[in-house]
């Protein structure tokens, strides 16, 4: 973890390295950040799940060089009636909304790499937005606050 969660707690922002070893710390920070918005436990779980899926995909398949030399930024904020988690990385352009996997159970084992994670994100979030901004992927996932 590049920046201490305490240091950035006020703005609900965290920067991690592109290293799977940083995911446990990310989950601890995320639970605390999301709980600040007084959401139910199921919403905390949904963000934890979706952040794990998205960041694991980015670190595992998103870079041509050493992922650990890149940073991934997470930010939690309120957007009207929704709570949003924005994940920004400077990896290869990847829009998870481009493909519709629609997995059938029997296909799970043969599912494209990372496909199940994307499918779970779509099922657990109320809205998902993607933008390529400069050299960065910006993925925003929203869940209703009520």
């Amino acid at each position, binding site marked *: 973890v590049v920046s201490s969660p305490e240091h950035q707690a006020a703005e609900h922002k965290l920067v991690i390295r592109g290293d799977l070893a940083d*995911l*446990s710390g990310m*989950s601890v920070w995320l639970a605390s950040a999301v709980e600040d918005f007084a959401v139910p436990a199921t919403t905390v*779980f949904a963000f934890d*799940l979706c952040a794990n899926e998205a960041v694991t995909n980015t670190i595992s398949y998103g870079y041509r060089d050493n992922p650990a030399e890149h940073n991934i930024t997470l930010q939690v904020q309120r957007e009207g009636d929704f709570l949003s988690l924005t994940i920004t990385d400077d990896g290869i352009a990847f829009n998870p909304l481009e493909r519709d996997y629609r997995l059938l159970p029997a296909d*799970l084992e043969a599912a494209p790499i990372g496909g199940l994670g994307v499918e779970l994100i779509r099922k657990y979030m109320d809205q998902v937005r993607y933008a390529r901004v400069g050299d960065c992927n910006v993925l925003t996932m929203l869940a209703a606050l009520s």
Partner: protein
Amino acid sequence: MVVNDELIGESVHKIKLSGRLDVAGVGQIETRFSGLTAAPRKSLIVDLSEVPFLSSLGIRLMLMCAKSVTKRGGRIAVLGPDENVRGVLVAAGIDKLIPIFSALNEAVAAVS
């Protein structure tokens, strides 16, 4: 992540996992879990009652395990997932491949 195994009767193997089945958790137990599920027991119950978190990596581990068990003619069931973990299993369609039970006796009956 803790893995406990127990033999029920002569042919049912129950494996209880405790901890988060995320990247770190799956990494910690992958080898041991695969070894246990390859053991010469006919059927398997995977107790998830002490697993508070499950991601797609955990699902893939469950699928690999189910494949290995069914390949040798055994049956597999999941026992006691909490609401969140059950939700992920259902969202991924795993409940159609591996039945989920709340009670141990029901799970034992299903795989026996």
